[in-house]
């Protein structure tokens, strides 16, 4: 999903998938169902994506971002 978005695009999370502890950590950071997430920047060569969530800017690895479904 994250590779097809343009910078500035906003999505609403429908689900957070993955192992229990990883999901809880992501939720604690603010990634819960119904949250708006905006793609701000992409690090080169498949590096982390920078997203805005609840007013914060977080860099998160693509492998973790893959847990976030919209």
């Amino acid at each position, binding site marked *: 999903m994250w590779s097809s978005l343009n*910078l500035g695009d906003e999505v609403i999370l429908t689900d957070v998938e993955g*192992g*229990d*502890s*990883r*999901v*809880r*950590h*992501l*939720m*604690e*950071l*603010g990634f*819960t*169902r119904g949250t708006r997430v905006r793609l*701000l*920047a*992409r*690090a*080169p*060569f*498949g*590096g*982390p994506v*920078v997203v805005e*969530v*609840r*007013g*914060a*800017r*977080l*860099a*998160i*690895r693509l*492998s*973790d971002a893959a*847990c976030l479904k919209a």
Partner: protein
Amino acid sequence: MPEGLNLAPGKSARASNGLPVVLVGPPNVGKSTLFQALTGVRARIVNYPGATVDLQEGRWVGTGTGEGWRVLDTPGIVGLEPRGADEAVTRQILFPAGVARNPRVVLVLDQTQLARHLYLAFQLREAGLPVVVALTMGDLLAEQGHEVRVADLEASLRMPVVRVDTGDPKSLEVLAEAVAALPVVTTAPEPPVPWDRARVEDARQDADALALRVLVPVPRPDPRVRLPLHERLDPWLLHPFWGFLVFFVAMAAVFSAVFWVAQPAMEVVDALVGSAGGWLHDRLPPGALADFVRDGLVAGLGSVLMFVPQIALLFLAMILLEDSGYLARAATMADRPLSVLGLEGRSFVPLLSGFACAIPAMLATRTIPDARIRRLTILVVPLASCSARLPVYALILGFLVPADKPWLGGVALATLYLGGLALAALLAWCVSRALPADVRASVPFVLELPVYRRPVAKRVIQGVLLKVRSYLERATLPITIVATLLWAATYFPVAGDDPVLRMQGSYAAHWGKAIDFAFAPLGLDWRAGVALIAAFAAREVFVASLALALGVTAVGDGLQAGLLASMAKATLQDGAPMFTLASGVALLVYFVVAMQCASTFVVAWRESGSARVAWGQLLGFNALAYGLAALVYRALA
């Protein structure tokens, strides 16, 4: 300096409830800034068992209670369930074992991040701790056109809430009054059970709703609609071309600071230590005591002080980058290649600094929140060829490379540096692969990109001083002891004034001779061996020690020429020349790989909090270095 954290009632028991007031909060909320504002320069680093992070304890004066309270800054947390060793420390401090009281907590929250950060307030409320909420970043929120209705927030949280501004002493007094008014909770502290997914989601929704309710719009001071700085800058700073350009310039600046700018300062330290030693030496009766004071004790202290300029400059650069907000972007840029090796973006600056010196590099790993990744970074740092290896490389390459082909020396030198780097990458990859996959993947890697801010001079300087002090407190004694022991090994038992005779008759030389056979696979004998032993004080000592072992008495500029001539003449017992292409390359390979620096050993142990890492480097890297050098010798001889 105390090893443990004193959680027992101190002399200010009455005022502080026996426990320190604990500052808690998510990362990047301005917690440390608030701590500095409360305690000023009276802070000190405390060690906490099992923790390798800097925990700062200070005295919060200006509380109207005379001597003030002890106050403790803690590693940032997102929730009460720890994500790594450092967050576990925060939890241990909040819920101390064996104490029948709860510490009083100042929960520091960023007002512009209220929806996210209120989650932690809910968790602390459930835990039943006495908490005052301190709201920071009010200026930023006002710029964004909002304000927090404090009374509503207090009523909903059932916790006192105070707006703090570190530039406004009044707000800090109000905070102190709120802390003083906290009830004393005398039940034994008990960490709450971890919340399940549903609970986390509920709390998140409640936090959203509450934040929405208490945030009210206010007229903006600057009504022009303008994108915030980070939204304009981040796409550029993470751009495949411009981003790398900025990254390269910033990292080149860091590297120059540690590698070149520190050089004159280190020479000054060296000269000062040298003249201090000489001064003391001249005032003592000639003999072993005077030599011990000059060459053992003072030189040992010197090898501690020697690193101060590098450490100060590295941390100056790092704190400037961090406070400006760029360091998190740089780490984002570097994350992808490092993640393949089991490291992360924040490992980059330490690894880069390792090419100057492993010691500041290891101290710089404290910015890596995950203890496992921090240890792995510390483990591979010594494989970056530090500046102390350069004199050794220069000597041996000067011997090996024909004078009419200087370019060959350049190529060889680059090969040595790249070889060390490749080995570091390989080792990191192997070690991280050895971990079970579920351990590796359980904690998501998330880096919060703070807003860009102008660094505050006072805070930067205090930060640098604190790092230097922390290094001196941790490392001075062990490094001096090891350096003094190494000196004694190359000095005793022969008395007399002739340094060549003393070296050749020393314990180190005896040991070298006793394991003479061990150097044969490298094409060397005990004379190179004793220099290798002496090099554990510092790698560059190899050059001077080899000169003594070969009987070269020239000093200064003549040393190198005399040494090269002696190396050309030196023969093994069977009459074959000792220094050949094969043994020279073997020696180079040994120096690239080996961990032969006593100071690094001490700091690695301290910083990783793991004896396994330090001994693994000392024994493992040296065994590997020896094996590779022997292979190379056999292939070339």
